């Protein structure tokens, strides 16, 4: 068992364990924090997969952006005076069965599939490469996503502001 493996398992356990807590925790704030760990774990996995830039982006966008956004959501939708920021659950039994089965099926599917695996050489740092393909091969997607982000920004602002009317 190499050090790489050990690190992988650490991050994997971190990711899955905190992911489990995210979905089971009754307190939304706690869940949010567990999500932080999950995202962090995932970022670690990215690093292990030689995706340094993505890992950084993961941390920045998710942890710095989305998670904060979610926390804002929690705060804004639950009255602060109301301590009960716990959330109820539904469909526990069908969900357990369903997702359990789904997990089993997907995992077995993943494992049984004979993936054509031939690890290629990736550059030490991917930032340069990503930048290149983003502005060459994927330039259209890139531009579209930029537009999308803009639209989402405006849209979110407009939806959130609707109450004024």
């Amino acid at each position, binding site marked *: 068992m190499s050090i790489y493996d050990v690190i992988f398992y650490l991050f994997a356990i971190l990711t899955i364990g905190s992911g489990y807590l995210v979905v089971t925790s009754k307190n939304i704030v706690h869940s949010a924090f567990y999500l932080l760990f999950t995202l962090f774990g995932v970022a670690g996995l990215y690093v292990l997969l030689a995706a340094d830039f993505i890992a950084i982006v993961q941390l920045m966008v998710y942890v710095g952006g989305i998670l904060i956004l979610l926390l804002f959501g929690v705060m804004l*939708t639950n009255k602060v005076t109301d301590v009960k920021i716990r959330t109820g659950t539904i469909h526990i039994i069908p969900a357990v069965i369903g997702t359990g089965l789904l997990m089993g099926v997907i995992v077995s599917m993943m494992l049984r599939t004979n993936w054509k695996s031939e690890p290629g050489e990736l550059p030490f740092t991917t930032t340069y*490469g990503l930048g290149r393909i983003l502005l060459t091969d994927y330039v259209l997607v890139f531009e579209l996503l930029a537009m999308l982000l803009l639209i989402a920004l405006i849209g979110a602002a407009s939806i959130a502001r609707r109450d004024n009317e």
Partner: protein
Amino acid sequence: MIEVGLNHYLVVSSILFSLGVYGVVTRKNAVMVLMGLELILNAANINFIAFAKYGNFGLGGQAMALFVIILAAAEAAIALAIVLNLYKTFSNVNVDEIDKLKE
């Protein structure tokens, strides 16, 4: 114990995906549903990147992961805006109680 390879990542992503689905399905609070969605998206991203590494596809997979993250950001923004609106309309954000779709 076998060496960590593609399958390991895939298993992790599968579990993460299932946990995300579970979260989406079970939680009443809309914000929690969003968190489940984030888990699902992350699971997908793990797959992208894992295949990028082991599938010899160059950096395409990573670029895709990047896009997903961007989408996730956009989605989160919109979704939170909607949640806020929901809250204003129904005074709560419990998805199970918002069943106007039934009619």
